């Protein structure tokens, strides 16, 4: 394979003295990076399928094997799937964190990040744009989980409006975890560091009210941990829309912790981006 013989090229096409260009605006930068991130997510079907399928497998297993839990006095629903569906949304969000973080870490490892750093791209635009793929993945997950839930007999107590709020909450949670993934990628620069957090998140998920309502947990230390574990309130916010209907307290706590998660992880990720994107 050889390079074509010298020939004139189009106006300013990489030639010396091409018209100088001005830096694009923040929105254009976010859109450009976001488009790439979304394209990457949609083209890696293998990476799409696992986060979709794994929580649904657990949902199927829990839905049948733990159905006896509904016999416990005070259990909030007679269909365990109604109860278990919230966990699926949170598990999906954890996978989004891995996807977003690994993508960014790969860019750092391969030098693509340096290529972007040589353009007038702003750190904020790079961070938000990179999370575009995570946002799309979170949307797809939310729709699929909801459809599967409804198809298996789950009834959304809060109705159609509740479905919209449920999706918004689950996407917000996913965005928070995606920012956490990005933070780890930017802080440590390796995919291994991003993946290392996954077991910890999974453990914290099981040390929450994911399997039983907090008031029905008999083991004191477990109930205490679940009470102080913010993961419980994320799950309970989603769950309230499915089981209870409109529970203002649960929703306020759910949205509150999700927003806090987004704010903290995004702020830390932005600071890490500034350190990582060292340009003079």
């Amino acid at each position, binding site marked *: 394979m050889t390079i074509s013989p010298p020939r004139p090229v189009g106006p300013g096409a990489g030639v010396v003295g091409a018209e100088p260009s001005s830096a694009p605006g923040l929105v254009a930068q976010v859109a450009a990076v976001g488009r790439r991130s979304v394209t990457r997510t949609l083209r890696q079907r293998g990476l799409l399928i696992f986060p979709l399928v794994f929580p649904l497998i657990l949902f199927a297993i829990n839905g049948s094997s733990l159905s006896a839990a509904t016999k416990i006095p005070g259990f909030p629903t007679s269909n365990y799937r109604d109860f278990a569906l919230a966990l699926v949304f949170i598990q999906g969000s954890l996978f989004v964190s891995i996807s977003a973080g690994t993508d960014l870490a790969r860019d750092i490892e391969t030098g693509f990040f340096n290529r972007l750093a*040589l353009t007038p791209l702003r750190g904020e635009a790079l961070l938000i744009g990179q999370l575009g793929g995570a946002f799309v993945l979170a949307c797809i997950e939310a729709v699929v989980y909801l459809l599967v839930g409804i198809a298996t007999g789950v009834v959304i107590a809060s109705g159609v409006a509740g479905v919209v709020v449920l999706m918004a909450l689950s996407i917000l949670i996913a965005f928070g975890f995606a920012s956490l993934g990005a933070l780890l990628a930017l802080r440590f620069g390796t995919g291994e560091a991003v993946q290392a957090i996954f077991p910890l998140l999974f453990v914290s998920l099981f040390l929450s009210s994911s399997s039983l309502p907090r008031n029905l947990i008999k083991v004191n230390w477990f109930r205490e941990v679940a009470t102080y574990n913010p993961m419980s309130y994320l799950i309970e916010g989603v769950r309230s829309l499915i089981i209870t209907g409109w529970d203002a307290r649960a929703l306020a706590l759910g949205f509150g912790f999700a927003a806090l998660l987004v704010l903290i992880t995004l702020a830390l990720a932005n600071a890490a981006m500034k350190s990582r994107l060292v340009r003079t």
Partner: protein
Amino acid sequence: MSHGDAAIEVEQLVREFRKGPRAVDGIDLAVSPGEIYGFLGPNGAGKSTTVLMLTTLLPPTSGRATVGGFDIVRQGSQVRSTIGAALQEAALDPILTGREHLLLQATLQGIGRTERTGRADALLVRVGLTEAADRRVGGYSGGMKRRLDLALALVHGPRILFLDEPTTGLDPQSRAALWEEVARLAHDEGMTVFLTTQYLEEADVLADRVGIIDHGTIVAEGTPAQLKAEIGSPSVEVSPVDADADNRLAELLAGFGPPTRNGRGSVTVQLPGGEAQLADIVRALDQADLRMASLQLHQPSLDDVFLAKTGRKLEGTGDPPVDDDQPAATGRPGRRRRGR
């Protein structure tokens, strides 16, 4: 060269890493506009660290440098708008196509929507990737990736191009093609090229001037011819048709300098008077009726220069195999004399 006119000017540039030695230890250099400057050295010599500093991606510990007239510390954004860079290992996204890479880069460089497509198309033609433009980069060969890397560095029409080991790992044909394009950029379009390499041949064939770096310091600098001339004269190796004639051959060549027998009948002699003595040798062989099977002129190599300056050989630290059928091995691509 007047330093004030330099495209790249470096004074006492230092980069120290925590708990490590000085990767770059007070280097000085100046590169003229339109010049190809080869920065030659083994792995770990400080080449890439220098490039990272000059491209504003790594702040120097001390010293100063300007690129395109802009200070690399205080005027980073102006430096970045002036330069294109293809850093070590083609940094590409295997999931995106070649065209998508170019459009992304053009967008981030602030090139208008209407102009982007035309510019991407023109660059794809230029680097010979038109047919592969809509294929994902993950399926590209090493040479194709390097050419796309080069095209990406050219998207915004930079005046100065940094290439960090651009041909590492490439086959001879891809290497020659890339050299051809780099030479054309400098010699036809007046682009300044700062090229790091650990390949002697690449520096010799492509660079107008070479700086040899070792342990963070520049140990020699000049044109390849100057550097080689500094350390010695060429030699000629003569092989007679009749291997038994080696004694007569050695006797005859002794008139030009101390002969060295190489086995298999061939004899080598240094030419202190340079290549001009070659004609005298041929005439002497003819007059003595000694028929030659071959006669080879050996020029001192940059490896000899590296050896003389550092006491070590650079050859063998990663030099690519030379394929004699490749144009790259036979001459300097697109070479033109410029009135500098």
